[in-house]
């Protein structure tokens, strides 16, 4: 299962940089970068914190694609 996120799109909507978001949720900038790219699956706590800052829900923030068989 492949994970995509809408973090970049929502960051742009609220005019937030990766640095701003990282400081708001209390992680390092690289962690936001890897989450955005779908390379790192965040904990429920972090996903909730990001969703809260971006004023959305976890469901809308993270999209899981079924891989082609």
């Amino acid at each position: 299962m492949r994970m995509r996120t809408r973090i970049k799109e929502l960051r742009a909507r609220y005019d937030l940089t990766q640095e701003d978001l990282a400081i708001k949720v209390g992680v390092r900038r690289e962690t936001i970068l890897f989450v955005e790219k779908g390379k790192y699956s965040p904990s429920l706590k972090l996903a909730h914190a990001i969703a809260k800052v971006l004023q959305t829900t976890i469901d809308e923030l993270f999209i899981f694609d079924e891989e082609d068989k």
Partner: protein
Amino acid sequence: MKDKLGIVVGIGIVAAVIVTLYFYIINAGNLELIEIFPIGIVLILVGATAYILWDRIKNMKKGYPAQDERLKITNYKACYYGFIASIWSAVFAPLISGIFFDYELPGNYVTALVVLCGGLAFMLSYLFLAWKGK
């Protein structure tokens, strides 16, 4: 506070290792190849540790945490790989030495190899996992 303490302790350990290595090299006289190899590994470990400490200090200055959940997971994974490398080096070091070089490794050499292999595996996997993001 806990992060700062960790960084101070880390710097202290790196300094202690460098001073120990310095006195060892000064007193050893002519170094043989078998002695240069472990010194090289120790220097790689010291360099990598210094890099990790510098990265943490840099992040703390910018207002980020020194270590977040991703780095904690990276740390646990790297510890696991280091542990596995230690166990297998304890098994294979005497075997390889005996079979290929016909030389029975003394116990203290095996212990040193276990520590160095474990440390090297930990450091390399930590840097690789931190770079890759998983």
